[in-house]
């Protein structure tokens, strides 16, 4: 593409996507969901990746503005806030649609994302039911400590389990870095220091998949159950197969991504839209997993 303007005139838009990072499957899936949706709607997409660098995200957005895109979808991932990004979009008068991550500060046009605390709560309630006589629940966090998405999820779980009878919570001291190998390592350490874990909650499915492997290697897959978040295809499959991976909270990158694209187009078309949209995160268990399992999905 020659980087030309889409412009509302001929009805075709060019929309920029500013990804904070693409190196997690979730964010990557989001990016591809946006692209897939754009293809259907005949919108041109320019996607950028800041590789986890907040300043680069800001300059990527500036690069996008240099290319005269009509709107920018910001997938901020673990980024708490990005005033520079929102300011430059505001200054250029281009709509800013946030997907997944809602920034704490700054003005944006619209946000579409999950309620992370609710997902956590929902998982916690599931585990409380599962462990009526109490038990030890381990929490595997993604980190780093400034990641409020993860914190919200863990807080949700804690809120649901704190008052449940006989439940003891164990927080892994180290972070799993949102990846399967990280989840594996953290779980191995937990298993070594706690012989009596009954359930594990991980802040995302990738870590849970690693944790599940550690539990299996330790030969304790008949005693420990797992709960994750996201609805990553491999996790859905594990749930569907009837393993000890029992539940996840769907945080569907496909849905959020395509809604985000739709929202951007709606705004450009001048339609009146909601400002903040919480995408529901249904609880996925063996019963309903088939409905959500799509091995060829974007995530």
């Amino acid at each position, binding site marked *: 593409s020659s980087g030309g303007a889409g412009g509302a005139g001929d009805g075709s838009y060019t929309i920029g996507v500013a990804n904070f990072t693409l190196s997690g499957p979730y964010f990557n899936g989001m990016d591809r969901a946006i692209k897939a949706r754009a293809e259907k709607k005949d919108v041109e997409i320019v996607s950028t990746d800041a590789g986890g*660098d907040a300043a680069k995200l800001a*300059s990527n957005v*500036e690069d996008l503005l*240099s290319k005269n895109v009509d709107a920018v979808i910001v997938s901020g991932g673990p980024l708490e806030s990005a005033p520079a990004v929102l300011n430059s979009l505001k200054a250029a008068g281009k709509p800013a649609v946030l997907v997944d991550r809602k920034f704490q500060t*700054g003005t944006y046009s619209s946000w579409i994302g999950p309620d992370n605390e609710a997902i956590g709560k929902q998982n916690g309630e599931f585990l409380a039911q599962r462990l009526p006589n109490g038990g030890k629940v381990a929490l595997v966090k993604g980190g780093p400590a*400034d990641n409020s998405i993860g914190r919200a999820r863990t807080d949700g779980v804690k809120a649901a389990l704190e008052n449940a009878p006989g439940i003891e919570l164990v927080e892994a001291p180290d972070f799993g870095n949102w990846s399967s190998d990280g989840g594996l390592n953290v779980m191995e350490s937990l298993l070594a220091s706690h012989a009596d874990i009954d359930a594990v909650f991980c802040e995302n499915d990738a870590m849970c998949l690693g944790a599940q492997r550690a539990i299996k290697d330790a030969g304790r897959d008949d005693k420990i159950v797992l709960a994750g978040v996201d609805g990553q295809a491999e996790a859905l499959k594990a749930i569907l197969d009837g393993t000890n991976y029992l539940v996840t909270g769907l945080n569907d990158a496909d849905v959020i991504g395509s809604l985000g694209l739709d929202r951007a187009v709606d705004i450009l078309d001048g339609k009146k839209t909601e400002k903040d949209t919480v995408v529901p995160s249904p609880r996925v268990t063996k019963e309903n997993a088939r409905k959500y399992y799509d091995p060829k999905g974007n995530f």
Partner: protein
Amino acid sequence: MTDQLTTSAQPAEPADSDGSAPPGRRPSRRPGPPRLVVAGRDLTLEAGFAVLLVAFVAIAGSTTDAFLTEGNLTNLLKQMVTTGLLAFGMLTVILTGGIDLSVGSVVAFSGIVAAGLSAGLPVPLAMLVGLAAGTGFGLVNGVLVARFQLAPFVVTLAALTTIRGLAFVYSETPVAPEKEGFFELGSAVLGPLPVSTLIMLAVFLVGGIFLSRTPAGRSLVAIGGSAETVRLAGIGVRRHVVLAYTISGACAGLAGVILASRVGIAQPSVGTAFELDAIAACVIGGASLAGGKGSVRATFAGVLVLALINNLLNLYDVQSFWQQVLKGLIIVAVILVQRTGRFRTAGAPNPADPGKARLS
């Protein structure tokens, strides 16, 4: 392009050509490749980079409209600031034969401290504290390396980890300063130029003079060539090594403060892998990790090359993962072209010293 670079990439004495190339008289006394000498300074290496950059710009300008817009050029200038500041500090350390891996963590720490303190202190003071924190970390690194004779790689790797941890200890969550004044440093412009870019340019200018024209600067370079020689010349080696790490820490502190101001929020997790870009800029600019060899101007060119690569890949709409693939390949291509030019001019790949050559 290759042809023009032939005159450029002579290994030369980058650090040397700054200082010791004689003013005036007999511009090309040694038989050898043609060299560009202006006002007594040997600018062959720099001229080569200039040619490379002009080529870059010409190609970019003629193939994508977005490149030569004011917005994009300003953007480019801003994007260079962090890497530029870090690269200058890194260069002083590399010249002594060391390395500083901790700069990314220092960026995070200084930024978050400055942002955090700005709530209670006047903004300039809070920023100064951020800068001072970076300087202090650099000092500690320097003392561990010089006084206790520890390997710079391990010392600064440990510092990378520790300082990152401290940034989180200071604040687990991102800090968003309230005062508008905090954002000025990062967003102010002077005419067409961002103030942050001007600060970086000033660091390169003053730093260049420091390294090429002051006894302390020359001692740093000499230490990288042979610390023992410098010691035998009655010059305090440790003191200068400490100085180099302190400069690097100060540059990282400054970069951290500017970055927080520019992004508008300070995160304890910012700055991961920043050290790699900074080192890459130095090495693309011909610096040798063995020490004693490196040029301020060529390092600046290295920073520019890296920023251009990123900018162009974005403008050409290259997909993220292919960007990574291409970025690596382009870097190799750039140093290969540089090296090839060197081969040609030198007649042969200096077989007398392949060990050094490999390291450089």
